[in-house]
């Protein structure tokens, strides 16, 4: 499968079909048993550090890694440091992302007070914080309400129009339909492209 710059690719598949594993391979977390994955020209196994400099990742368990007693903003500032973003630049991006994801009023609140959907949106903000050319999203709207989901979709499509490449997995066919110019079905380890009409039919 080849994904060009500025494309958005959606992977659908049953539970256990390997969507998360595929995201984890692309994000250098898991070494593939066979085959090759190249991100921005860098091999995920041989050049993982180069890959990590060019990706933003929302993992399926992406609500994790936030400290319960720090605010959403403080948590993002911490990840800004891990993503090696200069403090001032990180501050500006965090402000913009919190607004884009409708969290600006809750940015100063402790993470433990966030609802499931808010936590997921904060995790998405973390994935977008490095402003990376490639964004890997594993079920980005899991647990997010329909109104915020729409907002997330708008944000992602906006990023694609800016030239970002988005790789997204989902169980939600409606999401695949909204996001997917290119939709693939992952089944028993095999990826097959599916058309919009097939997506709509399912």
């Amino acid at each position: 499968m080849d994904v060009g710059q500025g494309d958005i690719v959606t992977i659908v598949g049953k539970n256990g079909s390997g969507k998360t594993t595929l995201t984890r391979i692309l994000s250098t977390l898991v070494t593939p048993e066979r085959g090759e994955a190249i991100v921005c020209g860098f091999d995920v196994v041989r050049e993982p550090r180069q890959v990590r400099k060019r990706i933003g990742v929302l993992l399926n368990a992406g609500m994790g890694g936030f400290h319960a007693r720090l605010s959403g903003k403080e948590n993002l500032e911490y990840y800004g440091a891990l993503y090696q973003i200069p403090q001032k630049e990180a501050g500006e991006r965090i402000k913009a992302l919190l607004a884009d994801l409708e969290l600006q009023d809750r940015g100063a609140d402790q993470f433990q007070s966030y609802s499931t959907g808010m936590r997921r949106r904060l995790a998405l903000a973390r994935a977008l914080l490095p402003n990376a050319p490639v964004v890997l999203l594993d079920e980005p709207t899991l647990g997010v309400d329909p109104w915020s989901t729409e907002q997330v979709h708008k944000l992602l499509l906006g990023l694609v129009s800016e030239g970002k490449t988005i790789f997204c997995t989902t169980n939600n066919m409606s999401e695949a339909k909204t996001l997917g110019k290119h939709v693939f079905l992952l089944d028993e380890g095999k990826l097959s492209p599916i058309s919009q009409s097939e997506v709509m039919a399912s």
Partner: protein
Amino acid sequence: MEQVLVIFKRELKVKASYRLTAVVTVISALSGLFSYAFLGNGAVVSTTTTTYGMSLAAFLVSGVAFGSIVSSGVSMFTEYAGPSQIEEVMVSPTDFRLFILSSSLLSLLIGLAITGIMFLSGVMLFNLIYSYNLSLLVAMVMLGIFSSIGLGLIGLGFQIVYKQTYFLSWLLYSFTGLVGNMIVPVQILPGVLQSLAYVTPQYYFFTGIRVALGSNVATATSLLVTFTGYTLILLLIGFASLNWALRSVRQNGTHAWS
């Protein structure tokens, strides 16, 4: 009542599945018992005075106070690589080793501060008399910190792969509490346990601290050389263990386990 029984049975099943933990708990309890039994064996006071050149109180205070530096050891990094955090760090461009070391810096400083406070309180409250070799003391403290980092990295590798560090913690701290020369002078232990003491980093740390505080139980140079070598080996094993653990979880995908 039925509900209580079901919950009880479930807990029993869970606990029974951790057989090693159960064995370790029993041996830890026995180890603690032995520590104090040896201590109370009558010869302790004369041992610390004649062998270490310091009173029993001075011996114990130096052991307990400086114990803060090496007490976290194996588990010193585990809180920073919990199941919910490790993946998020590993997908960032920050080197995992750098992340771990910088995250634990504050804890290390707190450990040092606690040591200082405990030691000074002990000295002032009990009028303890030491003769200070400050440069050796600083060197021993530094080696203690670096050996702890080595042990911490080994523990972290163990946690990442096996998802627990209890066994290692026990092995290195509960057990070596008996033979580590922290509270029980090695010289009053039976021969077999004395031999075991020489393979624990704690033995070199606590003996070195006592020498820096005026004891002539060993020569400073030989302690420094041995402990430096030991620390370097621990650091090498630690980094190798962490690298192996990271490779291992990348292969089987078990970074997060809850």
